[in-house]
């Protein structure tokens, strides 16, 4: 569904060339939950930004359903690939009601008629577990978890096929995080979505992704099925990452590589 071929991206900061991405090749298939894992500086966010059209790659191609995906992309491509950001605090316009925020994609992509917008927004809110009364509220009265749910509802509004999720739960408390992750899985099943999940949290990846790539300093360190990578990590870097996970149960410690 999405093919990434030989992507490379450089940044020039004060006459120093930083190779943010080198030689990135991967294939994301329909209905995958594809995790991109790495620490800060690994390039995972740069890769996500290229997929979203925020940056333009220096080399290589992205193909979405066999068609080129450029920085300047068609409205149709934008409709099909949506985005949930990391920071729930800044993802919603503080001066707009939840209704206005969620109806924006509905209007841009002409999903429903003008008089059906309210109904559709109510429906979207119900998918993410929020009451219709949230429609008239402003973001500053919502908790972090609720804001992120609104962000997910907004992403679903354009009836996309792919969701790119950039650390969607990292800024949330652990119980809320668990609920939101459950919600994301439920939605994925219900709407047959493909997820590209970017995170640094390996425990989350272990439980929701079927494929994973580990990035380190702009290159792909390791890739494969989640189970294989966790049970039999090939690269030392991957092993170190898994060992560093702060586990809470003794039986979990035993699962880490020696």
């Amino acid at each position, binding site marked *: 569904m999405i093919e990434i071929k030989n992507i490379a991206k450089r940044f020039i900061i004060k006459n120093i060339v930083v190779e943010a991405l080198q030689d990135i090749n991967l294939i994301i298939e329909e209905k995958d939950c594809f995790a991109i894992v790495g620490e800060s500086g690994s390039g995972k966010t740069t890769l996500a930004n290229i997929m*979203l059209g925020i940056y333009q790659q220096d080399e290589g191609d992205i193909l979405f359903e066999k068609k080129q995906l450029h920085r300047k992309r068609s409205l149709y491509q934008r409709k099909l690939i949506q*985005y949930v950001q990391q920071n729930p605090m*800044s*993802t*919603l316009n503080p001066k707009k009601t939840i209704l206005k*925020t969620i109806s924006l994609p509905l209007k841009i992509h002409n999903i429903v008629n003008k008089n059906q917008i309210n109904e559709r927004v109510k429906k979207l809110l119900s998918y993410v577990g929020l009451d219709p009364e949230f429609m008239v509220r402003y973001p500053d009265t919502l908790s972090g978890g609720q804001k992120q749910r609104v962000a997910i509802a907004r992403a679903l509004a354009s009836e996309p096929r792919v969701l790119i999720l950039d650390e969607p739960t990292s800024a949330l408390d652990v119980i809320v995080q668990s609920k939101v992750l459950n919600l994301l899985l439920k939605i994925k099943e219900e709407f047959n979505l493909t997820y590209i999940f970017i995170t640094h949290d390996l425990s989350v990846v272990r439980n929701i992704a079927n494929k994973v790539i580990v990035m380190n300093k702009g290159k792909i360190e390791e890739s494969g099925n989640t189970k294989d990578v966790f049970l039999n990590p090939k690269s030392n870097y991957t092993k170190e990452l898994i060992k560093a996970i702060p586990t809470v149960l003794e039986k979990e410690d035993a699962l880490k590589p020696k």
Partner: protein
Amino acid sequence: MNIFKTKYFYKYSRNPLSVIGLVIVTTVILLALFAPYITPFPEHVGPFTDFYNKSKPPSWEYIFGTDKIGRDIFTRVIFGYRISLTLGVVVLSIAVPIGVAMGLCAGYIGRKTELILMRITDIFLAIPALVLALSIIGLLDRPNLFYTMIAVSMAWWPWYTRLVYNITRSIKTEGYIAAAEIMGASKLHIMFREILPNCLPSLLTKITLDLGFVILVGSSLSFLGLGAQPPTPDLGTMVAKGASFLPDTWWFSLFPGFAILIVVLGFNLVGDGLKDMFDVDV
């Protein structure tokens, strides 16, 4: 919804000066609106002379006294408020849309647009308001209120450009702007529907403060002989005409001058109150 019960009014009213300012401004506006009905001598505003009653000091009949040709100064001051407020409203109605639009475009679109727009803004900002207004009036036929309003607007819009430009640049990197861009929202939508609402607290505060300053600048221009022409009552003109007769007939200049002071003070206090309430920096 009772406006006095809202959280905003509560915050605003923490400072007694802000409330005083609000009272002053409301009073001035009401006086100006109902001028023909509440003033004792509305006919003194037009061509009218009464040499029998000229240069009379303040009394019960003529609260602020009469001027050199017998017109009631109190009535003329209240009507003068009409001119001042009209000036303020019209000038800002021209300056604010221009300034805001330029600031949004320069801040959001960036690159060449930003360069060109901000350099133009810098040029206008470099010239003092009064000088700029004078030059523009000088270029036009003859001085009157309309030309004064245009001239003052030209001196005012750059400040709005700069204000909105700064806010736009700081909001540009927020998550919700990126979300709208990725979603496919047009640049126009993002500027006017996403960014502009976030500029409103600062804009409202600045507009309120500026109403006072525009009136002051307008009065200064009238003082110099530009602005509203006789017999239309204009506070600045009245101060000017009465200045040569100080200190004998002190009431010619004092009351119009005081009127200017009160209205400018009022808008200043309200503006400061809004600044505290919205917690902004203009």
